[in-house]
């Protein structure tokens, strides 16, 4: 006995709520995004999944509801009677019954979805327009025929029942569009025993008002004798009532029998049939009184035949004769297969035939040769060369190294020396260290050596100048200066001397011998070398003088790039 908990019965939502809840759950729980470029089976699967999920959901909820609500026969009779009194037993049972039906109904969703998908893929056959219907045994050549005659691309294979459903192709004849319907093969057995594939063919035969082309395989390659094919023909004959019928003997290249029909006949027959039926119909009369064929009355006896331009006549003749086509490039390609090379140069129209495969030079040293091409270039070149000769003779191209006289050369040398001297002077004045007030030149003492050297450079004779005035003056002042110097540098008192003598100087303290002293000095120099080179005050000097060096950031942009700025 099922245990019911009246307090825990599932909420029965309203119809609208029920649908909303389920649909939103489907939206949330199933994949939502599908792209056009997915494979078709994935897209179909996507939709199927949504439908299935919805169905499952509804089913579950309804089942839950039905399970939760107590069955009146299962509960204690007290509750059964109570419920009858309060809620009316019949109404209650009916309601639950209807819910059950709804649950069963929902199970059809999946089936319907599949039907929808298949239905959209059925071929679009217009039952009212001109149609040719191909029927016959399997493997007789119906699909090959439709492939040849229309642009359809039906599978053609050696096994029977390659075509499993109806296929439609379209062709043009007499400026009209014709439908050609290819059917799966029909085997000879009674209607009840036919499977779905054959039934499609039978349905088409039964309902489409078309010209029927019954295709027979005279070579018996399809696996059925002519006798069998005839029997089939007879058995489905009742379906051909009221339709123009053509019997097509196919595969006669294998086994020769004169062909019984061509497609033209089939179409013409159908047209005639259709016109006849239309004429018989009632609607024709409405149209007939609107139709009037106007024939022009003859003015005189002059014959006025229809005018066909010559070009059209020629083309018509060519079409009839079926002139041999010229060999196409495509044919050549198929012939040569792998060896084929596309060589368009053979079509060129040049004056000499053997120049067609020349490799033409295009560029020389930065010039395009095509810019020089000119039929009259040789003449122009001759004129130019004559001009050039004249110019040369006139002396235009003589190198003008003027033979300068010696005087001019001397002047140039002197000018150069003067310029150098000037530059040196400028540099000297820049290097001058100006400490303190600017003194006149006479305040600075000039050494004798320097004076004599400079004057010597200027060309004056400076040997034996000991008794010149400046030398004598220098001697007189020298003695005084020397004396003063000696007084200034008097040795210190004994006390300081002894102190300084007892303490060894710092660069000698701690060193044992000369070798060690030498090494120490070397080490000192080495550690100072880098710092000195970079002009640093000491180890701790990390000052950068130039954060934006000009040579890296300034200047014009020459032929290079700017990506290192």
């Amino acid at each position, binding site marked *: 006995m099922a245990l019911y908990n009246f307090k825990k019965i599932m909420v029965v939502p309203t119809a609208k709520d029920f649908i909303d809840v389920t649909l939103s759950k489907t939206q949330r729980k199933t994949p939502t995004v599908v792209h056009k470029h997915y494979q078709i089976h994935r897209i179909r699967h996507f939709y199927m999944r949504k439908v299935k999920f919805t169905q499952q959901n509804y089913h579950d909820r309804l089942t839950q509801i039905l399970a939760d609500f107590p069955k009146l026969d299962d509960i204690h009779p007290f509750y059964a009677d109570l419920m009858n009194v309060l809620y009316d037993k019949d109404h209650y049972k009916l309601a639950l019954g209807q819910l059950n039906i709804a649950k069963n109904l929902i199970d059809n969703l999946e089936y319907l979805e599949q039907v929808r998908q298949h239905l959209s893929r059925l071929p679009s056959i217009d039952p009212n327009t001109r149609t040719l219907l191909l029927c016959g045994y399997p493997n007789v050549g119906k699909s090959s025929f439709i492939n040849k005659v229309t642009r359809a691309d039906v599978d053609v294979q050696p096994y029977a029942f390659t075509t499993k459903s109806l296929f439609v192709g379209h062709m043009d004849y007499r400026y009209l569009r014709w439908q050609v319907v290819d059917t799966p093969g029909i085997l000879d057995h009674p209607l009840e025993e036919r499977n779905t594939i054959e039934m499609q063919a039978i349905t088409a035969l039964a309902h489409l008002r078309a010209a029927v082309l019954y295709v027979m395989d005279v070579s018996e390659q399809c696996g059925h004798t002519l006798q069998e094919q005839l029997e089939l023909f007879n058995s489905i004959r009742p379906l051909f009532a009221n339709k123009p019928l053509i019997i097509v003997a196919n595969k006669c290249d294998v086994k020769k029998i004169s062909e019984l029909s061509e497609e033209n006949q089939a179409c013409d027959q159908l047209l005639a049939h259709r016109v006849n039926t239309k004429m018989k119909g009632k609607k024709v009369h409405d149209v007939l009184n609107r139709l009037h064929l106007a024939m022009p009355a003859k003015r005189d006896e002059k014959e006025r035949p229809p005018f066909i331009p010559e070009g059209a006549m020629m083309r018509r003749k060519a079409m009839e004769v079926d002139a041999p086509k010229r060999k196409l490039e495509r044919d050549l390609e198929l012939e040569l297969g792998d060896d084929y090379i596309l060589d368009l140069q053979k079509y*060129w*129209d*040049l*004056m*000499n035939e053997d*120049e067609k495969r*020349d490799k*033409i*030079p*295009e*560029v*020389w*040293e*930065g*010039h*395009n*040769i*095509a*810019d*020089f*091409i*000119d*039929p009259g*270039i*040789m003449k*122009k*070149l001759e*004129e*130019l*060369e004559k*001009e*050039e000769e004249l110019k040369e003779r006139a002396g*235009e*191209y003589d190198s*003008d190294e003027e033979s300068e006289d010696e005087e*001019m050369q001397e*002047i*140039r040398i*002197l*000018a150069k*020396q*003067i*310029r150098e*001297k*000037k530059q040196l*002077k400028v540099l000297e004045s820049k290097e001058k260290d100006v400490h303190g007030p600017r003194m006149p030149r006479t305040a600075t003492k000039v050494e004798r050596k320097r004076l004599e050297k400079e*004057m010597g450079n*200027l*060309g*004056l*004779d400076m040997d034996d100048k000991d008794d010149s005035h400046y030398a004598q003056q220098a001697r007189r002042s020298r003695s005084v200066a020397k004396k003063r110097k000696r007084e200034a540098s008097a040795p210190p008192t004994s006390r300081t001397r002894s102190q300084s003598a007892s303490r060894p100087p710092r660069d000698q303290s701690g060193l044992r011998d000369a070798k060690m002293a030498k090494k120490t000095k070397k080490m000192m120099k080495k550690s100072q070398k880098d710092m000195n080179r970079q002009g640093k005050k000491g180890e701790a000097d990390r000052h950068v003088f130039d954060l934006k060096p000009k040579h890296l950031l300034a200047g014009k*942009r020459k*032929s290079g*790039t700017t990506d290192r700025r």
Partner: protein
Amino acid sequence: MRIEKCYFCSGPVYPGHGVMFVRNDCKTFRFCKSKCHKNFKKKRNPRKTRWTKAFRKASGKELTVDNSLEFEKRRNIPVKYNRELWDKTVEAMKKVNEIKHKRQARFIMNRLKKGKELEKEEAISEVKKNIHLIKAPHAGKAKQLEDKMVQKLQEDVDMREEDE
């Protein structure tokens, strides 16, 4: 395949290099490098930008009108291929090129001749003004005087000898 001309600097644009800009009026501008392209976008006039060929030709720094320059010209009438013609053209082109270079060089040299004259005059004036920097005014004078005196003495002696 063609070697095009840069619109801004008139240099060669080889295939695979540079940038082409197409304006709304369908005029195309080719540039050989981003320098030219950027200058163009700044709307600078190539005839006033000193480093371009256009400036040099417009301000007469290079040979502009000459027969040898008329050979290389883009003609809009196609000529059918003829091996003979192409062979001759290639040879002619080389000769024309030589002559063209000679004439261009000659033109520039002539232009620079004036500078030589000026240089000469400058040297002369320099020497005149500043000779004192390398040669004292009476540099060789002492020697000269000495020589003169010696000569005079010699003459005196000779004269006295003659007298006696």
